[in-house]
C-alpha cells in the first residue's frame, strides 16, 4: 500500500527545516515569496477531490471517486493508462505531473454549498491541494468555483449542468468539461422534431431552483423554435417527493408532451409518478402523449427502473459509445471495478487528465499558466469527439448524446441506448448568448 503523505507542509519544509528546531516565521500574504497558492515544491503534488459522499448524490460521488482513483493511477503510470493512450495530446508520460507523483485528498460536499466550501478550504489550507475538482450539483460547483477563484487554485468542475456555471457565474480559475442546459436543449430539439413532429403542446415541470430554471428556459426556447407551443411551466419545490399533485393537472391541460426539468431524486419520483398516472398510454390531440427528460443519467435511470423505457433525454457521455477513447476508459474502469462508469465518472476523469495535461504543457502548476494552457485548447480522444475548451467562458464544446430508455435491458446498467450523437457544431452558441450573459470571467488569480 502506498505510504503517502498528504501534507503540503511536509513536502514544503521537512527537507529544509526538520530537526533544526528553529522557528522560522513566514507570512503568506500577497507579498510572500511563493508565486502562487500551494506551489508544490516537493516530489509530489496534491489534488483535492471534493465529491458528495453523504446525501442523495452519494452514489454519484462514489462513482466520481472511483474515476479519480483511476485517473491518479494512470497519471502515476500504473494500470493500463486508460484514456491517456487515446488522448490527442501526448504530454503525459505516466510519471505523475511534471515528474511529481500525484497524491490526492478527498472530502464530502454533502451537496451543500457551505459544506462543500468548508471541505475545499480544508484541502487548500490544510492539505495544500493545488487543484480542486468534483461535485454533483450546480449550486455546489458555483460555490466552490467562487472559492477557488478567491484562493487562487484551479477548479475543474465535475457534474454541473446549469448554464450559470460557465454563464453568469463563470470564473477565470474555473473550467467545465460537462455540457449544460442549453446544449441539452440544442441536441434534443432536432431529435424531438423527428420523433414527435412540429405541432406539439409541451407542459414543463421544473425543479424550483437555479439549475431547473436555466434548463427550462433552454428547452422551452429550443422547442418553441421548432414550432411547439408551451402550455404551462410549473415550478415544483426541490424538497417535493410526491409529484402527484403536479402531474394530475397535466392530464386535462391539453398538453401532449411533458418535459421534466428535474434531476436526481426529483427526476426519479416525477417520472415514476408521471408513468403511474398513465401518461404514457394517453392519447391527446390524436397523438401519443410523450415524456422528455432533458438531463438523463444512468444512475437516475436505475432508480426509476422500468419507467424510463422509451423516454428520451440527453447525456454527456455513455459507456456504450464505440469510439476508441470511450472504449479504453470503459475497459480500464470496468476491469478495476466490475461495472461500467457513469457519465459523472467520465467527466471527472477527463477533467483530471485535462488538468494534468495543461500543467505539463504549461510547464508549471501556476493557475494562470494552467488556465492559459486550457483556454482555447482543442483535443480529441476523450470520448466526445473533437472538443474545444473555449477561452471566453471555459466551457467545453463537444458532441452531445441523445439517449432513450432501453426497452430490453440486458443488465443492471444497460438502461440507456444512444439514439443520436449530436455534433459539437450544433450545440455551440456564441459566448455572448443572452442565456449566459451577466457575468465576467475576471482575471486569473494565482493566490498567495
Amino acid at each position, binding site marked *: 500500500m502506498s505510504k503517502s503523505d498528504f501534507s503540503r507542509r511536509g513536502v514544503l519544509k521537512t527537507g529544509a527545516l526538520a530537526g533544526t528546531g528553529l522557528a522560522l516565521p513566514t507570512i503568506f500574504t500577497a507579498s510572500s515569496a511563493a508565486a502562487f497558492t500551494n506551489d508544490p515544491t516537493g516530489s509530489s503534488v496534491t489534488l483535492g477531490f471534493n465529491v458528495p459522499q453523504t446525501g442523495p448524490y452519494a452514489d454519484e460521488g462514489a462513482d466520481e471517486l472511483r474515476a479519480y482513483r483511476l485517473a491518479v493511477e494512470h497519471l502515476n503510470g500504473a494500470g493500463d493508462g486508460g484514456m491517456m493512450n487515446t488522448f490527442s495530446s501526448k504530454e503525459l508520460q505516466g510519471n505523475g505531473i511534471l515528474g511529481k507523483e500525484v497524491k490526492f485528498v478527498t472530502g464530502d460536499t454533502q451537496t451543500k454549498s457551505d459544506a462543500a466550501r468548508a471541505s475545499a478550504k480544508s484541502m487548500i489550507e490544510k492539505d495544500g491541494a493545488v487543484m480542486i475538482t468534483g461535485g454533483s450539483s450546480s449550486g455546489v460547483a458555483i460555490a466552490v468555483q467562487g472559492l477557488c477563484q478567491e484562493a487562487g487554485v484551479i477548479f475543474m468542475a465535475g457534474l454541473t449542468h446549469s448554464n450559470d456555471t460557465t454563464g453568469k457565474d463563470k470564473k477565470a480559475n474555473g473550467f467545465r468539461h460537462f455540457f449544460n442546459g442549453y446544449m441539452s436543449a440544442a441536441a434534443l430539439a432536432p431529435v424531438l422534431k423527428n420523433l414527435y413532429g412540429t405541432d406539439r403542446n409541451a407542459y414543463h415541470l421544473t425543479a424550483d431552483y437555479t439549475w431547473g430554471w436555466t434548463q427550462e428556459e433552454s428547452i422551452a426556447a429550443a422547442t418553441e423554435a421548432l414550432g411547439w407551443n408551451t402550455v404551462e411551466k410549473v415550478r415544483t419545490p426541490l424538497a417535493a417527493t*410526491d409529484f402527484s399533485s403536479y402531474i394530475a393537472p397535466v392530464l386535462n391541460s391539453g398538453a401532449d408532451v411533458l418535459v421534466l426539468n428535474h434531476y436526481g431524486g426529483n427526476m*426519479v419520483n416525477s417520472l415514476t409518478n408521471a408513468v403511474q398516472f398513465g401518461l404514457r398510454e394517453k392519447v391527446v390531440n390524436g397523438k401519443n402523449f410523450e415524456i422528455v427528460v432533458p438531463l438523463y443519467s444512468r444512475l437516475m435511470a436505475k*432508480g426509476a*427502473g422500468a419507467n424510463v423505457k422509451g423516454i428520451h433525454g440527453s447525456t454527456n457521455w455513455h459507456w456504450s459509445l464505440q469510439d476508441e477513447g470511450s472504449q479504453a476508459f470503459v475497459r480500464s474502469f470496468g476491469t478495476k471495478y466490475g461495472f461500467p462508469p457513469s457519465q459523472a465518472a467520465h467527466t471527472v476523469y477527463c477533467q483530471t487528465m485535462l488538468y494534468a495535461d495543461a500543467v505539463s504543457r504549461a510547464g508549471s502548476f501556476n493557475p494562470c499558466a494552467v488556465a492559459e494552457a486550457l483556454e482555447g485548447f482543442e483535443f480529441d480522444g476523450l470520448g466526445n469527439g473533437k472538443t474545444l475548451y473555449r477561452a471566453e467562458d471555459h466551457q467545453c464544446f463537444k458532441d452531445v448524446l441523445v439517449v432513450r430508455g432501453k426497452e430490453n435491458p440486458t443488465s443492471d446498467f444497460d438502461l440507456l441506448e444512444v439514439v443520436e450523437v449530436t455534433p459539437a457544431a450544433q450545440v455551440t452558441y456564441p459566448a455572448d448568448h443572452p442565456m449566459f450573459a451577466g457575468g465576467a470571467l475576471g482575471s486569473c488569480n494565482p493566490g498567495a
Partner: protein
Amino acid sequence: MDAILLQILNGLDKGSAYALIALGLTLIFGTLGVVNFAHGALFMIGAFCAVTVQRILNLSYEVVDETQKDFLGNALKVKTSYVESWFGPEMGGAIIDWAVPIAIIFAIPIMIFIGFVMERGLIKHFYKREHADQILVTFGLAIVLQEVIKYFYGANPIQTASPEALSGVANVGALFGMDIVYPVWRIVYFFFSVVIIGGIFSFLQFTTFGMVVRAGMADRETVGLLGINIDRRFTIMFGIAAAVAGLAGVMYTPINSPNYHMGMDFLVLSFVVVVVGGMGSLPGAVLAGFMLGILEAFASMNEIKSILPGIDQIIIYVVAIIILLTRPRGLMGRKGVMEE
C-alpha cells in the same frame, strides 16, 4: 371541477402517508411520552423490507450466453432467478411481480421485532429523561439506521414496482359520470391506510388491551397503581407503532422509489402533522394528516400558485402557524401535554 376532485384524491393520498406516520408517532408519544425522532427511519426500514423481499425473490444464478457480449466484450452472463426456475417463468414471474404485497407479510413481524428491540434496548431508559435527551438519542439512532441501510443499499433510489395488475389507472369518476383517472396503486394505498387506521382505532376502542393503553395514555400512574403491567403493554404498543410505520413504508415503495433518507424527508412533516393535530391525540393526528395533505395538493395547483407564488413551498408551515396561533393545542390536543 375535475381538477379539484383530482387534487382532493391527491391530498387524501399524500394525507394517508402523513396520517399513518403521525399515528405511530402519536401512539408512541401518547403511551410512552417519548418524542421519537427515529420514527421516520422506521418508515424507511419498512420500505426497505419491500426492497429486500424483491431482491430475495430476484436472487439469480448466472448462465453464460456466448452469443451476447457484456460491456467489456466478454460473454454475457444471463441471470435467471431461482423463483422463476422453480415455479416456471409464469408462476415465478407472478410471484416476483407481487413482491410488494408479499413483503407485507414479512414486514409485520420484522417491524414488530425491531420495535421491541428499540423499546427494550434503548427507549425504555429514556422514559424519565428530558425530551431533549430523547430527541438526541432517537435522532442518533435514526442516523445510524439510515447509514446502515445506505451501507447495504446505496444512496440511489431503488425502484420497487407494484404488481402489474395494480399498476394502471382506473377511472374513479365513472361512477359519477365524470372522467377522473387515478393510479390504481394510490387508491389501494388510501384504502390500505384507512383499514390500518380503522384497525388501530377499533383495537384501542374495543379490546381490553386497548382500554388499558388508552387509560395509560390519560393517566399512567393511576393505571400503574391498579397493578396492571403497563410497561409490557407499552412495549407492545411500540411494536405496533413500528409496524404501522413499516407498513406505510412497504406500501409506499411503488409510489416513489425508496432511498435511505426518505425517513428524514417525512420526519419533519409528520412532526408538524402531529403537533397540528394536537400532541397525544390520535384522531387529531389522522385529521391533521389528511387535512394537510389536501391543502398541500390544492396549493400546488397552477391557479393558486399564480396568485401566491411559492405557496406550495410553505403551505404546510403557514397552516401550522395559523392553527397553532388560533388553537393553542392544535386541532384536538389535550391540555398540559408537552407544554413545559
